[in-house]
């Protein structure tokens, strides 16, 4: 029987009511009295020396308050990078400066050169066209391998080269891995591109800066997944505003998918300009602008080799990846192709030896950073593709080759530095075969054939490391931040609760699901619990929402704080009932003394806490409010198995997804409906990557896919109803809720299933030469592959 409330119930989302009636409050809905508008003048070229910026004409235009250029930011800090990677030789990465507005050079199309602030947006835009700049164009650096040649032009003149780092992992294993390849019975090699994607949260970024001349306080309203991180980065590293004089508010945020983690120039600009002009300054990103300014995702070029014994047991994996950083280091960019990618190369398998080499490269393109999955989709894609290729080469069934190599005993320490605490990969694979009706495939294949279509079935497994992360561990790995999470639980006198979380909800439904957890722990109606997030002024320092961490880390903090509340409330209840705190039980919102019929209601205890007339003041303080910070002691490891069935039109190359099945193990589930929704969304993004999406630059560094006219977003008719199942549950062993994280699984696990299915369809139709097609598998690419 499904539960109807509390943990495990598909409670309807309370936030929906405001969104469904047009009463959400997104950043662009915020308009402050006296607000001025910013319009950015951006580089039209990929690479050039910025010789001169003339602003006089623009400054004289109607409504213009001021025109800012890089010179205005000379005494101001640059946008910081939050992660420092150490290369395989023990040297730290090359880390270029990242000015708020370009100084001396422009390094990608979209790099900001100047900003006009005016009374209206139209005036600012009109005047922006009057800003005159002189750019001496330089040869753009675009191809990653060419960028590393000694004669290549440099993106950053002050760096030695375009190489950010050359990372080896695990470097000590390198020779042993090579030796394993030398004696392997079979080696499968695959070269592939994990293409650049544009995140495309439906809400474009917006920033509104405000300055209080009376108190010298600055406030930034911004579309962020992590307002405290923005406050720390912008306050401490860019503008020099101490955190107690800076408030960052991320109200309703229309999706993030990673792209709203990072600190962007426009946020710093609006905060800075508001103080300079003594007026609120608002910037609303145009979609075409977000294509050339939001951090992009993926963009890896990889060669992976898999060594097997004669029976198909994996002996070793060796990879070489070129990872595009773009023109600057976005906030967490260096961590993505390294610690979020290399550590997942074991997948669900017992491969004993792994060596991952990643060369991170600067190019004259938009910076690249975490996008839904971040590093883990890249790891999963290459691994699950090369396994499929190996199975085909060796004549082993793709299901069997995976089963042969599954990790089955936990905890399992991989050769790439992480320890899986729990899992059951056979169980999710069994469930997948059932829900995808793999047994019935041959009959469906015959039906497609009869209609002149090709049909294919692809499947794969995945594992991801979520719930980032133990601070001591990420500190060793180069993070310049801790990755705990926080919660304050405030119980009011009349019994209602306000939970202030450092996590941020931008679609995940925390206002509902977090309330389910706290209400369940105490035994209250969920409507008695209010979740507050997104404002540094009223939430404890938190690291925000990304990496499928909110419930596993933020939820754990909330559990810890609620446990403190319960412990204190029991002491109060014990006092009221003249019993010992150890004998107090809390059930369904009432305290009882074990073995007696004595009882006090939750509201009696909370009232006593704030009206402490009859209260153990000598033992405990009045009030009922507790804060907890939770620092996880490991990642969580959601895992599962996915299957995709496609039909291919041999005349046009068009691929249609007929069905997609996902069997996931997320550990315990708080709200099954919300979990399903997270998987659905991830699947669409993964299918989008596999078939539709790709950011393409031309040889001049212009983004060809710079709008929805050319960047294909998945639409409702591109995808089927998905079949999802999360009944296989091995609870996480190290967090109090036993939860793992579900936000990225769909995006991580689905691209290989789709590509495996297309290759399967082509192979079955006799195209034995086609072992791989690079994503996106557009009709033209598939057709071209079929032409040989």
């Amino acid at each position: 029987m499904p539960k109807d409330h509390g943990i495990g119930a598909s409670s309807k989302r309370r936030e929906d009511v405001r969104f469904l009636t047009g009463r959400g409050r997104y950043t662009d809905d915020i308009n402050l009295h006296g607000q001025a508008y910013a319009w950015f003048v951006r580089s039209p070229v990929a690479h050039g020396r910025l010789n001169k910026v003339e602003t006089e004409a623009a400054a004289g235009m109607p409504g213009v308050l001021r025109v800012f250029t890089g010179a205005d930011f000379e005494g101001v800090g640059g946008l910081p990078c939050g992660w420092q990677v150490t290369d395989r030789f023990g040297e730290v990465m090359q880390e270029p400066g990242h000015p708020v507005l370009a100084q001396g050079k422009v390094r990608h199309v979209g790099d900001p050169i100047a900003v006009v602030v005016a009374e209206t947006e139209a005036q600012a835009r009109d005047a922006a066209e009057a800003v005159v700049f002189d750019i001496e164009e330089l040869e753009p650096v675009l191809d990653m391998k060419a960028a590393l040649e000694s004669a290549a032009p440099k993106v950053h003149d002050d760096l030695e080269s375009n190489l950010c780092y050359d990372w080896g992992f695990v470097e000590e294993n390198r020779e042993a891995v090579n030796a394993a390849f030398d004696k392997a019975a079979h080696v499968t090699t695959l070269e592939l591109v994990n293409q650049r994607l544009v995140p495309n949260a439906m809400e474009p970024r917006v920033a509104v800066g405000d300055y209080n001349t009376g108190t010298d306080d600055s406030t930034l309203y911004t579309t962020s997944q992590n307002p405290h991180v923005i406050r720390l980065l912008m306050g401490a590293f860019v503008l020099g505003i101490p955190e107690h004089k800076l408030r960052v508010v991320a109200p309703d945020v229309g999706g993030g998918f990673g792209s709203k983690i990072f600190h962007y120039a426009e946020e710093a600009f609006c905060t800075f300009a508001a103080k300079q002009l003594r007026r609120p300054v608002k910037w609303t990103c145009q979609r075409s602008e977000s294509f050339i300014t939001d951090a992009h995702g993926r963009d890896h070029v990889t060669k992976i080799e898999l060594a097997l014994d004669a029976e198909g047991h994996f002996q070793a994996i060796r990879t070489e990846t070129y990872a595009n950083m773009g023109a600057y280091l976005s906030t967490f960019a260096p961590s993505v192709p390294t610690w979020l990618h290399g550590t997942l190369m074991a997948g669900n398998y017992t491969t004993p030896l792994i060596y991952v080499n990643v060369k991170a490269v600067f190019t004259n393109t938009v910076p690249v950073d975490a996008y839904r999955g971040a590093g883990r989709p890249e790891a999963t894609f290459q691994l699950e593709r090369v396994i499929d290729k190996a199975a085909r080469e060796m004549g082993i069934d793709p299901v069997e080759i995976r089963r042969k190599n599954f990790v089955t005993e936990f905890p399992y320490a991989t050769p790439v530095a992480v320890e899986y605490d729990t899992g059951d990969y056979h169980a999710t694979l069994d469930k997948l075969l059932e829900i995808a009706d793999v047994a019935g495939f041959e009959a469906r294949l015959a039906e497609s054939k009869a209609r002149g279509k090709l049909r294919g079935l692809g499947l794969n497994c995945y594992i991801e490391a979520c719930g980032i992360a133990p601070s001591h561990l990420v500190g060793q790995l180069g993070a310049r931040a801790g990755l705990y999470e926080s919660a304050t639980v405030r119980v009011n006198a009349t019994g209602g609760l306000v939970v202030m979380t450092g996590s941020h909800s931008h679609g995940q439904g925390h206002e509902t699901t977090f309330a389910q957890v706290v209400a369940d722990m105490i035994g209250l109606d969920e409507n008695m619990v209010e979740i507050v997030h997104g404002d540094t002024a009223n939430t404890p320092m938190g690291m925000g929402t990304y990496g499928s961490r909110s419930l596993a880390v933020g939820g754990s903090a909330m559990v810890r704080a609620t446990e403190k509340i319960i412990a204190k409330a029991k002491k109060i209840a014990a006092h009221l009932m003249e019993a010992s705190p150890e004998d107090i039980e809390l059930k369904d919102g009432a305290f009882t003394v074990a073995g007696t019929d004595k009882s006090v209601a939750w509201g009696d205890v909370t009232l006593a806490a704030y009206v402490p007339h009859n209260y153990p003041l000598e033992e405990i303080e009045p009030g009922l409010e507790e804060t907890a910070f939770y620092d996880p002691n490991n990642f969580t490891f959601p895992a599962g198995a996915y299957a995709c069935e496609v039909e291919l039109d041999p005349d046009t190359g068009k691929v249609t997804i007929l069905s997609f099945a996902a069997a996931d193990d997320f550990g315990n589930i708080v709200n099954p409906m919300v979990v399903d929704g997270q998987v659905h969304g991830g699947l669409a993004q993964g299918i989008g990557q596999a078939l539709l999406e790709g950011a393409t630059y031309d040889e001049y560094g212009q983004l060809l896919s710079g709008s929805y006219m050319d960047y294909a977003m998945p639409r409702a008719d591109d995808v089927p109803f998905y079949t999802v199942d999360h009944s296989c549950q091995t609870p996480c062993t190290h967090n109090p809720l036993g939860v793992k994280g579900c936000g990225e699984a769909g995006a991580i696990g689905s691209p290989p299933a789709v590509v495996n299915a297309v290759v399967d369809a082509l192979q079955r139709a006799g195209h034995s030469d086609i072992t791989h097609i690079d994503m996106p598998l557009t009709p033209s690419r598939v057709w071209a592959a079929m032409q040989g």
Partner: protein
Amino acid sequence: MAKVSMSVNGKPVTGEVEGRTLLVQFLREGLGLTGTHVGCDTSQCGACVVHVDGRAVKACAIFAAEAEGAEVTTIEGMADADGSLSTIQQAFQDHHGLQCGFCTPGMVMSAAALLAENPKPSEAEVRDYLEGNLCRCTGYHNIVKAIMAASGQDVAIAAE
């Protein structure tokens, strides 16, 4: 500047607009109806869909002056008269047809237009009708399900 008059959510409104003022700007900035969203600048995302004289229209691709005299309905005018969620809105909540909520106003307006034209659409017809509405969160699954449910059709889907 020119004067424009129309009915928005059943109430007569007037305002001063430039020729280049889009209907979505008039609604958001002129009338403070911020439920209608702007998600792109090429008229493709559909977050701004409203009804003009009963038909779904992208409010970012029509000038305010072109809606002179028209009956305009926005997401703010979709709830039932007593303020409770309409059948379509309720179906979106019941079936988790929204996550971040940004595309939601356009989705609801398109869904309402669809069901007005075609009260019992097939799954394929629903998906086809949503061609001009992008959602990045839901993978469309629960949006399609919600619209089917709002039309009074069975939405049982395997393995759920």
